[in-house]
């Protein structure tokens, strides 16, 4: 265990852990959007900025991907941090003015006016959906396209995400809730990735329980018999 200080409070973290998870464990709140335990830290949203003092030198850094070390001191509420955080949330809100969660966060940090030109995007480009798709699901269906201010999260070539298995993991993790799913009759659509998959119905009860494509993939990977997914999870005895 490595012990260090956050805001004067002594905390302990495992070797290889990052400041943000240790802080959250200790009940110290640091605002964050792009962090999820199940994937590697990425540092995209920059909201978890903290001031780290090491051997007398202080620097601003994202806490989600800064490893814990002996004899560091972390400040999450210093004037410098708060100012930087206010700037970041102001930029985020200017990029996605329609987002409720961002506006709430901004209000909490005391940001009232937004001085920048408003764009009409809804995605904050945290990349969490793509990272979950890569690391947790392993489907690699989506990825960032373009660079700089034209960067966006779109299905390949702006078309349809053909590798998407419509598992819904991206729908659950999206921090600003812009990836949405729709189920109508025997079809499930992940709206943002423009991908519609036919659902399989159970042979016994007739309810739709999962997309065909997804079940085929599972069956192939686990080398299951052909009729393995004929019945739904409830009807299987």
């Amino acid at each position, binding site marked *: 265990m490595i012990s260090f200080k956050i805001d004067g409070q002594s905390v302990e973290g495992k070797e290889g852990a990052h400041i943000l998870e240790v802080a959250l464990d200790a009940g110290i709140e640091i605002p964050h959007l792009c962090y999820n335990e199940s994937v590697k830290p990425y540092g995209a949203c920059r909201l978890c900025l903290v001031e780290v003092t090491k051997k007398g030198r202080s620097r601003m850094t994202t806490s989600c991907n800064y490893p814990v070390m002996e004899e560091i001191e972390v400040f999450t509420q210093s004037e410098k941090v708060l100012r930087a955080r206010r700037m970041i949330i102001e930029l985020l809100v200017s990029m996605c003015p329609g987002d409720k969660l961002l506006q709430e966060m901004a209000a909490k940090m005391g940001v009232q006016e937004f001085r920048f030109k408003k764009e009409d995007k809804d995605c904050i480009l945290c990349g969490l959906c793509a990272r979950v798709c890569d690391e947790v699901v392993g489907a690699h269906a989506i990825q960032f396209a373009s660079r700089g201010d034209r960067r966006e999260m779109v299905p390949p070539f702006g078309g349809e995400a053909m590798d998407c298995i419509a598992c*819904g993991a991206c729908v659950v993790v999206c921090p600003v809730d812009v990836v949405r799913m729709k189920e109508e009759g025997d079809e499930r659509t992940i709206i943002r990735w423009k991908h519609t998959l036919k659902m399989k119905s159970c042979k016994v009860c007739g*309810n739709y329980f999962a997309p065909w494509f997804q079940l085929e993939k599972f069956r192939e990977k686990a080398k299951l018999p052909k009729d393995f997914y004929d019945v739904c999870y*409830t009807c299987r005895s």
Partner: protein
Amino acid sequence: MMENLNVFAVRTLTQKEYFAPGHRSCQGCAEALAVRLVCKALGRNIIIAAATGCMEIVSSPLPFTSWRVPWFHCAFENTAAVASGIEVGLKVLMRKGRIPQKKIVTVGMAGDGGTADIGLQALSGALERGHDFIYVCTDNEAYMNTGIQRSSSTPFGASTTTSPAGKTKMGQITWKKNMAAIAAAHNIPYVATACPSYPMDLIQKVKKAADIKGAAYLHILSVCPTGWRSAPDLSIKLGRLAVETGTFPLYEVEHGRYHLNIDFPKLKPIKEYMKLQGRFRHLTEEMIEEIQARINHDYEQLRERDKRGF
């Protein structure tokens, strides 16, 4: 929408456990699972006031505890009162600056006996006063921890030790009290029913309840293999069957607007749900038909409400 999400969506949840393993609940207890998921969804900054009941007995035998979050054991009848006291206390302490300003969710947690029977007046008072807290009722349809005595939440026809099936009576002779409707009648911002067999749905509902300002009521069906006389490995399946047969529909009421979360083109016959449980095994065909008719009626009503919106 979240009801049918499979293994991958669940893997993105936190791996931290706030309701620790090693507690003494029975094999196949879905209530422990429900409490674990509720704690997972709420995270660390919560205070739980829990009534006496299964979850109190199994999680806190002195000197052990399963709770990694602040947890308060209170009497049967005052769970909601204690929770509202905690909520107001926190508010005042924050206003006076004794503790730093941050979001701390207060949770009241009780079984069906502690909610529908004994704790009802405290709950009604707390909901009416509009405290900003979540009330979680883990409903296993009888007083399981003291030895399967009937509660007002026991379904019609179920055999319990105080409503035994015999020559003159066929188990419980009253219908299950509709607690979610009672809570919704208080005009609180959020009421929902959930079941741990649909974990993503349950977690989304708990998160929603925590985000909403004002009182929220969650009714969670928790299968109890001991009291329902069912095999412990069927708990998840029974939970799913309860939803798929229409016995326990999953819906939410937001500011009076009904929304059926999961709807099936065709409901399964209630018999499929009942034949797996020993507490229903004395029922005759006519009684099952009677129960089926009542469930169909209730479900149809709910569907209409979903369409109408209120």
